[in-house]
Each structure stands twice: as structure tokens, then as C-alpha cells.
């Protein structure tokens, strides 16, 4: 019965999709692979990878800070995670886009350089590099900044869970050998935490790919969703271009999911293989000992 209902509904839906003029599949196919859309795909993938790399880096730093005995360091990390987990990504990205309007230039140089300079009567403002706020804060960099900052907060929690999964005896053994806290983290704890950290990071990467569509808030004009929307609006073929975006995200996400599947399987298999190989070595050496 349920199967029949599902079959009928599916058929009705397929019929609607195929025959309704609004979908205009031939227009979609003609435009789905044109240069601006492909450029959008490239930008989206690049943004996903870079935001994840930065986010993982920020997450590791925050997770280690959270374990610091210094309450200021620990507190700063807590505040960061609280702040960036509490605001929606779309709002954060809008703010990042707006930063270019709030401040026209960003200087990299001596802190309070211009104040110091006026105090000393210098004409320079002691800046080493100054950037036009609209150049960096608009577009790709602002988007990357927003996504990476936000991702860092989520990755911090994942890394923290990974670190917590490692037996405290490991840190004690490392300390007893004279290893510092940082060295212990880098050489002993984090490598073991990876088994716990890797699978949820795969999920985060897929979520990140989809969240690049939020870059519309900035906007990042060469990103996939912006491009398909722009073409749709310009040609009044809104639905076909929405379908094009949908199919692209489906395809890209699926590729990541397949990648994740094999990555996790490889991790597990690698472990088993190592076990198996060593088992064989053991058996052989025992065999050898017996024969002697």
C-alpha cells in the first residue's frame, strides 16, 4: 500500500518536472557548464578547502588553549567559541562584508601606530602594509575570514573531544620523559586524537561546501550560487538556474561523501592490515623460534 502511494506520488512529481515549462531543462543544460558557472564551481571548491584548512588550524589552537592552566588563555578560547557558535553564519558573513564599509583601510604595523606617531610628532603612521578595506573585506577574503572564524569554533569542540579521548596516562608518560606540554600535545596526544577528529571533520567539510552558498550575503561575486542566481535573474530563467545550482551542489557533495566513505574505510582497513601483517610476523617468528 505504502509502496503504491509512493510510486504514484513519484510519477506525478516526475510528470510535473518533465512537462512544466518553468523548468526549461534545455536552457539549464546549455548554461550549466558555461564559463562563469564553472568559475563558480572552482571558487566554491577553493573556498571550502581554504576555509576548512584555516578552521582546523584555528580549532586546534583553541582546543589546546582551552586546556591551558592559565585562566586568561583558557577564558579567551572559551569566549571565542561561545561567540562564534552563538551567531548564525549568514549574519556573521554579512558583518564581514560590512567591515569594508566600517573601515576604509586596514593597517598591518605597530599597534596604535598612528597614535604613537602623532605623539612623537612623526609624519608616518608606522604602518608596514596598508590595504584598502573594500578590496580585502569585499569578496573572497571577507568570505574566507567569516567562514574560517566560524568553522574554527566548531572544530575547537571536535578537537577537544578528540584530545579528551586520549588516555591521561599518555600525557603522564610523556611528562615523565621530560617532554613539555606543547611537545606532548604535538607528538603524542594529537596524533592519537586524529582517529576521533577525522570522521566529524569530513561532515564539517560537506557542511562547509553547502555553506559557501551563504557567501551571497557578502557577496562573493564569483562563487557558484551567486553566478547561477545572476544568470537566472538576467535571463529570467530563474528556476532552471536554481536547478543548475541544486544539481551542482548535489554532485559536489556526493563526490565529497564518496571521498569521505573511502577515507574512513581506508583508515579502518589500514589499521586492520597493520594488525594482520604483524600477526603474520608474530606467527612467523614464533615458527622460526620453534624450528630452531
Amino acid at each position, binding site marked *: 500500500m505504502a509502496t503504491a502511494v509512493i510510486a504514484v506520488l513519484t510519477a506525478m512529481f516526475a510528470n510535473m518536472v518533465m512537462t512544466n515549462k518553468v523548468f526549461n531543462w534545455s536552457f539549464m543544460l546549455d548554461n550549466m557548464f558555461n564559463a562563469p558557472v564553472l568559475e563558480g564551481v572552482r571558487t566554491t571548491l577553493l573556498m571550502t578547502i581554504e576555509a576548512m584548512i584555516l578552521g582546523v588550524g584555528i580549532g586546534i589552537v583553541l582546543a589546546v588553549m582551552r586546556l591551558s592552566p592559565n585562566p586568561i588563555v583558557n577564558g579567551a578560547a572559551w569566549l571565542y567559541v561561545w561567540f562564534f557558535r552563538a551567531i548564525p553564519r549568514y549574519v556573521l558573513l554579512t558583518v564581514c562584508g560590512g567591515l569594508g564599509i566600517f573601515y576604509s583601510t586596514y593597517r598591518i604595523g605597530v599597534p596604535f601606530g598612528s597614535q604613537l606617531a602623532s605623539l612623537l610628532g612623526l609624519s608616518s603612521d608606522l604602518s608596514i602594509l596598508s590595504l584598502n578595506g573594500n578590496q580585502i573585506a569585499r569578496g573572497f577574503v571577507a568570505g574566507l575570514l567569516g567562514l574560517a572564524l566560524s568553522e574554527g569554533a566548531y572544530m575547537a569542540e571536535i578537537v577537544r573531544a578528540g584530545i579528551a579521548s586520549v*588516555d591521561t*596516562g*599518555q600525557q*603522564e*608518560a*610523556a*611528562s*615523565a*620523559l*621530560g*617532554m*613539555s*606540554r606543547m*611537545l606532548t600535545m604535538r*607528538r*603524542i596526544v594529537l*596524533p*592519537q586524537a586524529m582517529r576521533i577528529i577525522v570522521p566529524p571533520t569530513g561532515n564539517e567539510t560537506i557542511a562547509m561546501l553547502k555553506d559557501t552558498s551563504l557567501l551571497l550575503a557578502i557577496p562573493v561575486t564569483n562563487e557558484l550560487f551567486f553566478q547561477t542566481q545572476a544568470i537566472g535573474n538576467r535571463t529570467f530563467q530563474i528556476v532552471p538556474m536554481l536547478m543548475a545550482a541544486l544539481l551542482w551542489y548535489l554532485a559536489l557533495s556526493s563526490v565529497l561523501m564518496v571521498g569521505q566513505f573511502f577515507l574512513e574505510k581506508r583508515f579502518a582497513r589500514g589499521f586492520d592490515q*597493520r*594488525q594482520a601483517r*604483524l*600477526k603474520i*610476523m*608474530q606467527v612467523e*617468528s614464533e615458527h622460526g623460534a620453534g624450528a630452531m
Partner: protein
Amino acid sequence: MVRAEQIYKSFGHVEVLRGIDLEVAPGEVFCIVGPSGSGKSTFLRCINHLEKIDAGRLYVDGDLVGYKQRGDRLHEQRERDVCAQRRDIGMVFQRFNLFPHLSALENVMEAPIRVRKESRAVAQEQAVRLLDRVGLADRRAMYPSQLSGGQQQRVAIARALAMQPKLMLFDEPTSALDPELVGEVLDVMRGLAEEGMTMVVVTHEMGFAREVGDALVFMDEGVVVEAGKPREVLSNPRHRRTQAFLSKVL
């Protein structure tokens, strides 16, 4: 080599160490026995500053552990100095605590390379020699999960020796082992003792204490109840609490 003066340590409201005094001479095998929860592990962990002491003085090789004395005030040492002190004190744990992501050889090489900044070649040569010495020459490439408990503990001893310590701490090194594997670990420890290593050993192996130990203390409820030559204390315990404990374990 180790001198403890009136060591106190509490966890929250629980007083675990209540005025421990003892002295370990260089080259001595110093055994600590006592019932569960008496503070044996806690005391051992104070010796390499894995636990902070609340009061008292603890010296290793003449140096105050974990603190610096300036005038008549004690200042807590910086992390670097604590690490430097720990390098000279090896520790072997009840549950081995080998690094599971590293092979036996890498476990032994890790600290010399990262902490003492030795070259890979030198560290590897030493690690091979140490694994050979604990009878595991043919198990170098194996990971801890592939080794028996006794083998793991012997790798752990080699790992501690790789830092060329002047003092070795053992916290019930054979308690987690199947009975038939205890002997191989005790043999390695006996060898170490014969070579003159200073060792502080928390153990329930009374046979080992009697045979290899130079001194023995019985601890209960955070104090040293009785101290002396292992043979004397184990054969003729004077204190009632020692008698009660020994009648249960022997």
C-alpha cells in the same frame, strides 16, 4: 639520591600523604609496600613532580624537586626547569602507558630525539641496544597492541632508560600482568639493580623485595609505619598494621 622531609599532600579534603620522611641512597633498590589507597603511587608521583606537594621538602640528587629556594621562600619552577628535572628520573607505570601510535623502537627513540635533541642515528642505535637488553631485539617494529603485557612493560623500561636517568621509579610494574609474565619483567629489573641503578619500587612482589631490595618501607594511610631491611620487615614485622597486611599478602 632521594630525600623526603615531612611530605604532605591532599586531594580536596582527603589527606593522602601525612608527613612522609625517607631517604634513598644512591645505587639502592628501595621498595615501598602497603595496602591499596595508602598513598604509594601518590608519593612516587611527587618524586618527579607529576603531583605537587602541599608541604615538606623533596630532594632528588640534592636538588629541590619542582621548586626553587630563594631566601627562605619557595618558588614554583617554570615548566622548562621541571621538564629538565624529569629527564633524569625514569618512570615505569602499572599500565605501561606506551605510545600506541609508535612502534616499540619509536617509543624508545622519541624522547632522546625530541627532548635531548639527539640525531636519529644515535637515538636509533641506543634504542636497538636497549631493546636488545630487555630481550626484545626481534620485536622492534611491532606496535604496543601487538605485544604481550610483559613485552610492553619491558619496552616501557627501555623507553625510560633511553633518557639515561640517574633514578628509576616503578609503580607496581607487574600488577597488570598475567602471572606467567611477571618473571620476565622482574628479571629485567633485577639486572638493572645489579648494574647499580637507583630504584624506587612500589610493589606487591614480596619475593622480589626480599631478594633484590636494599631497603623497604611499609606505608599505610599516608604515613611510613615501618622501615628497615626487607628481610627483617617482611619476616619480623614489629607493627601490628604491618603484620596484618603481610599476613594477607604472603
